[in-house]
């Protein structure tokens, strides 16, 4: 069977080679890079602009952004017909292609996040390795831990007040540098679509900007969600272990920290959400007003065939409902959870409507293509380019975060308090 034939249903006049070639993994790709960029921008709000209320969130968001970074290129790898040739993008980049920039942007960004993390956690590495060094007869686990942390210090054990101050300066610089790079990382994902002149729905210079805005929205939402989940677990542990560990914060303390962090973050979420929606609506109005040759088929896709996924699921459930939820004063954790879940869903639907919606009509402008997501896999192709593959990609950063947070403890400062 031809690639794409399995999940494509053609209607009316469609040329023989047209299929939905870019399927669920290409929906996941901008969704995941968006989360990376958004999480980083959120952490930078504290480091660069000194928004104190975001202090707890900043550390958390940075580590999470690092975990997401590894998951971000995975959808593309799963999408490629030759995943093992993917490395050619770095080896022989063809720079007229937007995708070729991926290697440079991705590694630059990765280097920035990694160095910022190093400066942020340097003190912790030194403390842990010194503590383990002094310990006599280490167990095997401790020995491994010792080796890992010794390596992570990179041989620098100076944690004097002066050098820590220098670290802070470096963090601020890297965070500031990271904002444009994070925006570029995601803006370029938008450029991949926006520059395809053959696609009437994708081609708009607004695409990278729209992608950046919705990226920040989704990144903030995911950080809020993960933060709430982590805090709930800590509250639960605090309740159980209070007697054993007197040093831990009480449940009430944690609760008040949690709600104030969420309140503050929600404000930024709202601001970026409004920006994202405005740009998307502007794009829609502009297309209708200028009504180029492609508008007839676009209109039938937007207002008729994809009405449910665009207006109901994306704008309605994904944008309007959370907007109202966050605007009602006196936000609660429960409402925030519902809100961020819907926001994440909305951003995912936006990616879906761009990627799948962009292939919903034929190049002839006289035919349509329907996408049927493979749910139950029956071969390797339906595993990687089906629901299973998409879920695997979505779970990946959380699994990575669990591992990475063993080395970069996100709640370290609170324990120390």
């Amino acid at each position, binding site marked *: *069977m*031809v*690639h*794409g*034939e399995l999940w494509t*249903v*053609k*209607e*009316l*006049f*469609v*040329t*023989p*080679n*047209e*299929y939905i*070639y*870019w399927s669920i993994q290409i929906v996941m790709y901008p969704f995941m890079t968006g989360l990376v960029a958004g999480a980083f921008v959120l952490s930078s709000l504290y480091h660069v602009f000194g928004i104190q209320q975001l202090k707890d969130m900043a550390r958390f968001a940075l580590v999470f952004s690092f975990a997401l970074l590894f998951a971000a290129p995975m959808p*593309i790898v799963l*999408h*490629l*017909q*030759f995943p093992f*040739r*993917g490395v*050619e*993008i770095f*080896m*022989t*980049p*063809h720079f*007229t*292609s*937007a*995708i*070729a920039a*991926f290697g440079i942007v991705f590694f630059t960004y990765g280097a920035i996040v990694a160095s910022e993390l190093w400066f942020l956690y340097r003190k912790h590495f030194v403390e842990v390795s010194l503590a383990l060094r002094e310990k006599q007869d280490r167990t095997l686990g401790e020995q491994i831990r010792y080796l890992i942390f010794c390596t992570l210090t990179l041989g620098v054990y100076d944690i004097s007040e002066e050098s820590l101050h220098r670290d802070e300066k470096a963090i601020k610089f890297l965070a500031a540098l990271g904002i444009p790079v994070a925006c570029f990382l995601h803006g370029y994902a938008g450029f*991949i679509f926006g*520059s*395809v*002149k*053959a*696609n009437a729905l994708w081609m708009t210079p607004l695409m990278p900007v729209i992608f950046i805005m919705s990226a920040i929205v989704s990144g903030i939402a995911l950080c809020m969600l993960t933060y709430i989940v982590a805090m709930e677990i800590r509250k639960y542990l605090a309740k159980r272990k209070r007697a054993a560990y007197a040093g831990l914060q009480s449940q009430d303390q944690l609760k008040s920290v949690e709600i104030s962090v969420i309140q503050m973050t929600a404000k930024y979420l709202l601001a970026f959400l409004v920006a994202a929606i405005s740009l998307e609506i502007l794009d829609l109005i502009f297309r209708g007003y200028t009504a180029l040759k492609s508008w007839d088929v676009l209109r039938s896709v937007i207002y008729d065939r994809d009405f449910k996924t665009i207006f109901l699921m994306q704008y309605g459930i994904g944008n309007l409902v959370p907007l109202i939820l966050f605007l009602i004063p006196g936000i609660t954790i429960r409402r925030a959870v519902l809100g961020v879940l819907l926001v994440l869903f909305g951003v995912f639907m936006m990616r879906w409507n761009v990627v799948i919606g962009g292939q919903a009509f*034929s*190049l*002839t*402008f*006289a*035919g349509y293509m*329907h996408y049927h997501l493979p749910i139950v896999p029956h071969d390797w192709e339906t595993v990687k380019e089906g629901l299973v593959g998409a879920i695997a990609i979505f779970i990946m950063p959380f699994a990575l975060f669990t591992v990475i947070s063993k080395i970069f403890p996100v709640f370290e400062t609170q324990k120390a308090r």
Partner: protein
Amino acid sequence: MISRRKFLKNTALGIAGMGISLSALEIIDPRKLFAEVAADKAAVRWAFLVDTYKCVGCGLCVKACKEENEVPYDANVTRTWVERYVLTKTGKLYADTPKGARDGFTTDKIDLNADGIKDISKEGIEKAFFVPKLCNQCDNPPCVQVCPVGATYQAADGVVLVDRKWCIGCGYCIMGCPYGVRFFHPVHHTAEKCNFCYHRITKGLKSACVQACPFGARQIGNIKDPNDPVTVAIRTQRVGVLKSEYGTKPQVYYIGLDEEVR
């Protein structure tokens, strides 16, 4: 001891100095020189001419292409295909290309894919015609532009080729082509497209579809040769190209191109 400032300064100066002296020398690649000298004498730019008045929709070109280029016969993809356009007296347009017209248009009924079969009475038809399609071997090919690894490239004679050993299968070229000529090869899994039968034309043969067309609706020639029949036809007759608004500068010319052709 050398200070850090001095070290950095000297390094920067050294690199800049080396850069300048190296840039004064141009390393001449013998192959490039040879190609530039040869380019003027044996200038070849392949171009294609389709006379839509002559096409009857028999599909022999599609069949020949599939066999010549080893595109699986029953796979629903093809390097070339023929479209049928039917305009009714009520002003409605119907068009189809069942299996790329591999078996020819053997029935009057229009294949609307998932929307079923449309039967149009002969009396209701205002005009109807066939349009063969293939890769336009654009002068400004968007597929070459978007390939992230340079696996698809344009030869000096204008034909756009795909390196099956280097293609990663991302599908960006398929998305970038405004003519829908690209697809993933069902066996090789790499991007696939019409290349004017490059293995034939570079040996002095005609493309398989040109050879197979019993009516002379398809012709291939060298547009840089002023005496080539294709060049003469393009110069002297009223020809059109597909989707010129994309700026791709397509090199497949059509005689009798209707504005309804997509």
